[in-house]
């Protein structure tokens, strides 16, 4: 039942919002994975990031698509938690400092999931790229053959930035890169990944926003 609701949510209102009300310009669409397992690594500016990324992937892979997110943020109220877990389909990370916060991500990858990860951690200041956290490297280390696809998005931080509920439509520019291969070293891999996202960002020439 919740699977059907999730499908209806993404096939209907989300597609309408992302493709018509906002609109996307995608470069490198062919680099998007068509099946799992895969990891999409993107910059994070807005609550719309997750919805937009999911709507770029084919609907028939929707059951495989799991955005990795901190549970505590969404646990503030029960309705929001239900929505995050069942409709958005998040894979919760435990930020409280338990055993392995990414244990369930590892299991999901093994089961062929397509994970969406935001290595900046939180949304941060709109349209500014923050430092990447290393968690993604630890995950790839255990699954070195899973393709890691870098994505850079611009515009969603203008449409719905952190700290506001006022949505203003802007076209979103999306750049999808080629998979970043594992390098047998966490730090080297993180440097490569960061360089890949920076490289995608450098392709765009965005109008001033200040």
């Amino acid at each position, binding site marked *: 039942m919740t699977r059907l609701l999730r499908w209806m949510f993404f096939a209907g209102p989300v597609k309408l919002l992302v493709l018509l009300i906002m609109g996307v310009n995608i470069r490198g669409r062919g680099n998007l994975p068509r099946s799992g397992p895969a990891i999409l690594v993107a910059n994070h500016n807005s609550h719309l990031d997750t919805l937009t990324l999911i709507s770029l992937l084919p609907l028939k892979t929707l059951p495989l698509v799991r955005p990795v997110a901190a549970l505590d943020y969404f646990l503030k109220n029960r309705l929001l938690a239900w929505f995050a877990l069942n409709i958005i389909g998040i894979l919760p990370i435990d930020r409280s400092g338990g055993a392995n916060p990414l244990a369930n991500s590892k299991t999901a990858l093994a089961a062929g999931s397509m994970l969406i990860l935001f290595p900046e951690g939180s949304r941060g200041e709109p349209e500014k790229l923050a430092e990447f956290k290393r968690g993604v490297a630890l995950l790839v280390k255990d699954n070195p053959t899973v393709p890691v696809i870098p994505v850079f998005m611009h515009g969603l931080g203008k449409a719905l*930035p952190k700290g506001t509920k*006022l949505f*203003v*439509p*802007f*076209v979103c520019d999306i750049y999808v890169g080629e998979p970043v291969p594992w390098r047998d070293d966490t730090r080297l891999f993180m440097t490569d990944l960061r360089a890949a996202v920076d490289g995608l960002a450098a392709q765009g*020439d965005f*109008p*001033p926003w200040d």
Partner: protein
Amino acid sequence: MTGWLSLTLGIPRPVVIAVLGVYAILVIATALVWWLQRCSGGGQGELAARVKSWWAMVTVFALAVFIYQPLSAVFLGLISYLALKEYFSMVPSRKIDRVVILAAYLSVPVQYWLAYKAEFGLFVVFIPVWIFLLLPTLMALQGETTGYLKSVGILSWGLMMTVFTLSHMAYLLFSGDAANAVAGGAGLLFFLVFITQFNDVAQFTWGKLFGRHKISPSVSPKKTWEGFLGGVATSIVLAALIGPLLTPMDAMWSAFAGGLISVSGFLGDITESAVKRDVGVKDAGALIPGHGGILDRIDSLTYAAPIFTHFFRYYFYP
């Protein structure tokens, strides 16, 4: 068959015939591109994409505009909305103006409602007077004066170009029945849009074939005098042929209207090119394969729609 279609769909018969004529042109264009591709061994990919997009645009436009009137208002309003969104996404803006930008979007449904009601008095002042006065006040009340004047200019020009000017298409459609016994508002809108778009293609084609002398190399390097004049001549002849069948204008008036549309379409194109140059983009978007964004396809209409409408209204409205 055209009589049956006209009756079932409730569209004037000349418009049904005209739309079928456009499809005939598309069939010829598609065959031509196919033949060119065979000769050049698979080249002309962009041209092929363009023609393919024309099929989609003609079909969507014909279905949405000529079949059910309230739907036409929504569809034409959607064109303005998409153009305005493309515009806001390519120009510099200030974070503090987010709420004003939202207000600008909200003027679209109001403007198209006024066009739908054919309320000329309000329709023609809503954006140039009311919104023009309201938005800068809203911006001033936000309290940020750095970059204020520049933002007011960017916002006002964008609204005029994407909402006010284009909404004249809707006004023509909804007010034209009383002025056009031949084929109604639909006939007038068809005449305007068909001549404008055909003129774009004609200017492009004449320019490709015979273009030597550039008109404005720094703004739009591909525009030549040969292309421009060839386009004007083509549009005058075409308008003189179809004008009498779709509008109350005789061949002479139609020819004049054709020239007017052709020249204004050219000016709209140049104006949008200057903006794109200034902000440093080649295309305003990527919505229509082979054409670019919606702004790239309708830039000529931003001038042709209001100029033709006010010309026609002055001389032919009761």
